[in-house]
């Protein structure tokens, strides 16, 4: 069996590397080319890199298990992210896209610093990105290490394989190689999930005396098609969904993708194609989880409610080696497409808004870019290697920690003239909101902090409310004092 995995993995790596090498023909001569494709990405590349960056291994491992354990509410949770993202992108992406090319934005922290007229703010935002996203990136690497361990390749082999592939595919042509390999990896993800569900419906269910209708009937009778106990309180649903609702605005790796389409048509197509990809992929993944639950109810599959992340690995262990190795590689592809995008974006924010804000502007910007890139890959690899518990656990909180960026970003996009020079309220808002997030993470532990409630409301709602009120009050006071003078 291990030979099939080795062959498919080698095939995946070889094709991906050839695509990354071919993408060098687009020509990378500046940091603008390297990070935002010189603002000339086509529709397909824009849409697929947005989708592949967004959808990580969480979908095929985490969401399948979540749907298995908690029923259709897991679909509602993931689908709310999609619905909110379609709405936010439609509303803001066109103006952000226009401003990005007018003001030559490369990194999202640079964007916020520019809109508020403060390099200090850009620096703070870049640091928050690092603190929130390095653990998230590390979790992707740890996930691949665990998958490698599961099939007998070894955990550390998985970590080193990931580090090498992420550095190579990012180094070769920056966003051009990342976006090109994202198209390839996105196709791998969607095609393999279709293949996987076909195998479940037409082979696994019938071989256990079930068909699709009977399987859905079983999960329906057990209550998995309604609101199950975990979702019974709306505040739990809110605590899960709220941080992801603002993902399109707060996470730099997707904000940066709004700058890249070559024209308005490519931008609109990016939104539409991404939404279609997201909807189809979310349906496929959650149906897989529900069908696995039906098999458990029928007594044909072990009860993995308490080890829900093992649902997909257990399912693929039952498949033909070719099917299971293709699905296995799709999970790796989902992780790597997310990881290399995050590393590239963090490289842009670190080199532009942390390194250069120290006044060290070198003549060779590309060399600095490569050094920062290598440094970030090394840091992520080192954390994945030693797996310090708190840092790895912190990955679940990434979107909560980035949530204070939602008000300062949305207000700046909608009222750029008002926020100009309003950096002090923005800094106070950001530090207050992030402070609450980091405090709860340290005080209660990241996993508990995610669903923790104060006065009956989730922490994420408190972060959003406090940072919004702080920002708006600060801007109001500043505007009033400006008028007085």
């Amino acid at each position, binding site marked *: 069996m291990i030979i099939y995995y080795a062959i498919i993995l080698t095939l995946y790596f070889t094709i991906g590397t050839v695509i990354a090498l071919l993408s060098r023909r687009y020509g990378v001569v500046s940091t603008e080319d390297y990070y935002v494709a010189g603002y000339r990405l086509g529709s397909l590349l824009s849409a697929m890199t947005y989708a592949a960056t967004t959808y990580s291994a969480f979908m095929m491992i985490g969401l399948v298990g979540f749907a298995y354990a908690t029923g*259709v*509410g897991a*679909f*509602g949770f993931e*689908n*709310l992210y*999609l*619905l*909110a993202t*379609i*709405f936010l*992108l*439609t*509303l803001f992406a*066109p103006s952000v896209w226009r401003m990005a090319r007018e003001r030559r934005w490369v990194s999202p922290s640079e964007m916020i610093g520019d809109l508020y007229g403060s390099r200090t703010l850009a620096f703070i935002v870049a640091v928050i990105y690092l603190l929130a996203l390095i653990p998230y990136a590390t979790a992707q690497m740890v996930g691949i290490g665990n998958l490698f361990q599961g099939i007998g390749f070894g955990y550390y082999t998985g970590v080193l394989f990931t580090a090498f592939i992420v550095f190579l595919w990012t180094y070769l042509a920056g966003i051009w190689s990342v976006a090109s390999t994202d198209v390839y990896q996105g196709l791998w993800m969607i095609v393999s999930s279709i293949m996987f569900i076909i195998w479940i419906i037409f082979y696994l269910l019938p071989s256990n005396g079930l068909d699709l209708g009977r399987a*859905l009937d079983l999960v*329906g*009778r057990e*209550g998995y*098609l*309604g*609101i199950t106990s975990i979702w019974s309180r*709306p505040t739990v*649903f*809110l605590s899960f*969904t709220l941080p992801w*609702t603002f993902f399109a605005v707060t996470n730099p790796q997707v904000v940066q993708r709004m700058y890249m389409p070559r024209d*308005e048509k490519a931008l*609109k197509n990016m*939104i*539409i194609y991404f*939404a*279609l990809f997201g*909807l189809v992929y979310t*349906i496929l993944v959650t149906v897989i989880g529900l069908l696995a639950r039906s098999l458990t109810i029928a007594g044909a599959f072990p009860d993995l409610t308490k080890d829900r992340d093992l649902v997909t690995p257990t399912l693929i262990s039952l498949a033909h080696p070719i099917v299971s190795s293709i699905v296995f590689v799709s999970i790796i592809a989902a992780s790597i497409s997310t990881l290399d995008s995050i590393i590239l974006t963090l490289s842009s924010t670190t080199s532009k808004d942390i390194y250069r804000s120290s006044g060290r502007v070198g003549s060779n910007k590309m060399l600095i870019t490569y050094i920062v890139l290598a440094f970030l890959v090394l840091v992520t690899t080192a954390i994945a290697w030693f797996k310090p518990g708190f840092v790895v656990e912190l990955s679940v909180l990434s979107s909560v920690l980035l949530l204070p960026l939602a008000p300062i970003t949305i207000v700046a996009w909608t009222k750029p003239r008002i926020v100009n020079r309003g950096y002090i309220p923005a800094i106070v808002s950001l530090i207050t909101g992030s402070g609450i997030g980091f405090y709860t993470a340290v005080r209660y532990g990241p996993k508990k902090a995610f669903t923790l409630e104060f006065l009956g409301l989730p922490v994420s709602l408190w972060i959003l409310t406090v940072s919004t009120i702080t920002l708006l009050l600060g801007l109001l006071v500043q505007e009033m004092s400006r008028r007085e003078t």
Partner: protein
Amino acid sequence: MPLTKPLFIIVGVVLIVLAYIIPYTLLYRVSSLELYIFWILLTIVGLALSITYLRRGGVK
């Protein structure tokens, strides 16, 4: 009626609020695919709304 920016925002917010409220009111204890289909349809309506807004000049 033209799909203006304020109208788009109102309808979009209503769709998101419905995604939270309906499951806890009308579709709490369903035993078939009503809730699943409700969320899918809501997203399809949201996508259609976005396409209309993007293509009919809502973007200036």
